[in-house]
């Protein structure tokens, strides 16, 4: 049950668009910085494969310039 956090860098001027796009992706939470062009993305999936598919979806968002992983946790379902 991976929980992963990422830093997402949007293309210039595309921060709001990127927030909207990520918000539509199931299993993602997005937290935009208030004063920088940067977002925190936290993903919660049920398996490693599902996480990889989700990451590929995020990477494919046109306004996404760079997605870098910060931390990963493996946990059982509550």
């Amino acid at each position: 049950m991976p929980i992963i956090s990422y830093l997402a860098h949007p293309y210039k001027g595309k921060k709001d668009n990127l927030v909207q796009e990520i918000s539509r992706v199931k299993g993602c939470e997005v937290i935009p910085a208030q004063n920088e062009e940067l977002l925190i993305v936290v993903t919660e999936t049920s398996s490693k494969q599902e996480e990889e598919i989700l990451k590929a979806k995020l990477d494919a968002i046109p306004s996404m310039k760079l997605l870098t992983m910060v931390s990963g946790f493996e946990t059982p379902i509550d």
Partner: protein
Amino acid sequence: MYTSLTNRRSFLKKMAVLSAMTAAATMFPGILFAEEQEEGLPKGNLDWKKAPCRFCGVGCGVLVGVENGKAVAVKGDPKSPVNKGLCCVKGYHSVMALYGKDRLTKPLVKKNGRYVETSMDEALDLIASKMKETINDYGKDAVSIYGSGQWTIPDGYVASKLFKGCIGTNNVEANARLCMASAVTGFMTSFGIDEPMGCYDDIDHADVFIMWGNNMAEMHPVLFSRLLDQRMRRGVKIIDFATRTTRTSMAADKSILFLPQTDLAVANAICYEIIANGWVHKEFVAKHCNINKGLTNIGYGLEDNFSFKDQPEKIDFEAYKKFLEDYTPEKVEKYSGVSAKDIKYLASFYGDPNKKVMSLWCMGMNQHTRGTWINNLVYNIHLLTGKISTPGNSPFSLTGQPSACGTVREVGTLTHKLPHGVVTNKEHREFAAKIWDVPVENIPAKPTYHTVEMFRALDRGDIRFMWIQVTNPMVTMPKLKRYRDGAKKEGRFIVVSDVYPTPTTDIADVILPSAMWIEREGMYGNSERRTQYFEQMVAPPGEAMSDTWQIVEVAKRMGYEKQFYYKKESHIEEIYTEYRKHHANKKHNMAPLAVLKENPGMQWPYVEGKPTKWRFNATYDPACSNNEAFHFYGKPDGKAVIWQRPYEPAPEEPDQEYPFWLNTGRVVEHWHTGSMTRRIPVLHKAMPHAYVELNPDDAERMQIKNGDKVRLTTRRGEIILPASIKQRGIPAPMQVFVPFFDESMLINDITLDSFCPISKEPDYKKCAVRVEKA
């Protein structure tokens, strides 16, 4: 932010968010996620209580959420004018530092080389009897106390009262000697009274910010975010003037690098430019300033029992102007590494009458063998241009610790100080003795040992008993090996009060578990003269006890019940009320406790129900009494001093054998020696160990890559550290930087114990080092 482990999955999710926020904060100085931080707080019936953060000198107001007797969450206090609801990564994680697995909870006494648990009563009895025995055998100057800028105001006050007033020794020092002493002597020599004339509101008014060797993005991140905010709103300019490229340099509009120690020459060159271009505020200087020169070639304090006394001598403006002819920008560029063009660029902001300038500094100027001088020289710039004591025109020395100002500087926990005034002044001794209810003869008229000399005295055997509270000198002392070996010698008795095991508890004969921060009641005083109160919110673990009450208990056991009359349930109020008597005047009046309890802190001087934001300016400061716009009342004639101070080299400069400069300092993730923040998993993971930063060109030439082992050798010893290249900061060529937070890689084993002869503050920023691939 921290939440209880009621739901592992939601906890891990928060950890993931916090890790990302921490990473973001290290990449983007001043980055804010305030809405998320608010939304992410635990829901439920938390009891929110206000406190000042304990992890730096900014003094951010925080709200601590308490649930079932445990501190479970932190958020910025929106009512605090300091941080306006924001916190940095250390602040948000601060309550986690209360709950490390290895908290000290029981007193420990060393017996036959092993620590044995004992009761608090027995430990306090032993401390009192050892102090009495030491005084009987070796005299009262053989006992000492070494505290901290993390001491609360009551902690420092009772320490000073016990040692100076009751026992009768001036062997009271605090670690702020290692970080703020040059700021104090800078203020005292230029203005005759300590602490900044301005306040953080200056940030909202200044047009230009010049950082003098101050990595504010990492060391004072919330304040730095206020600068960035002003740049977004008003387009202010931020200029970083430093020896190393840091997060601050990267966020600044312009970064100017200078060679170590030459800030003295550049400051003089700026003054030269101000005069040469006719930018002097002649009326201000004529009315409000004297010009003095002092002694030169004043030494570096490297030898035991070093002493120095300056001999100020008045000079006229023409003599000062003549002196500055040695500091034309063209002459100074030859040895400072700063181009004449950049010197003129800096001078142009100070000289422009339509620009308000704030100069900010911290350890770069203070940890300097000419720390007092460089403080004087920056004041010179502001005095020559009249850019001082008005909103936005502000020379501002930032502090490193939550109560370096409140406890060490205001209470006066330094060998020469009293809460009001100095031990050398008979009237000041009489005043203190009356409030302390002790014979004036008890307070010696002569200071004894400043911090470096105090540890030298312990090594020599002149001091036999030392009580160390809230600080970790076995990580922070320069030339550490000598002082560690000295402390371990036969016939020394060391008491350490702390919250976790550290290299300093390793040298202790008695370890007392202390109540930390919100586990007790107290006050801190921050960089802008703001005193902030916090109540006890949670119970301390085991037998842990506040440092204040530890001292009170020992004082009573030593026979000073009369002076330490305080009741346990009300002692903080009684101590603070007594302490306020020392400052009951328009220049320093402290707000009553009821006012502190109601407000997110209050600035002194607090006069007729109002704080004073800008001192020495008659519009804002009721203590001004000369019927002029400005009154520098710290000096008898009401005038500030412009000091003629030359450039003098550092005591140890790179040579053939040791060809690099070694600079040391801090990182955003860790609080000083890391004894608390390294026990916070997110912060520890973000910055797990120390490293040596190299210039990329030097690294390439030496075939050193990131993570490679590098041997640093100085005349004091050697240490091996992993290399860091183009990661956090970038040193200039032939310079290296090492953070000091990591007790497993003690960089201070190889630093030099030279100090400013006036402030006695060591210089951790400059010594010569050999660098090799290990």
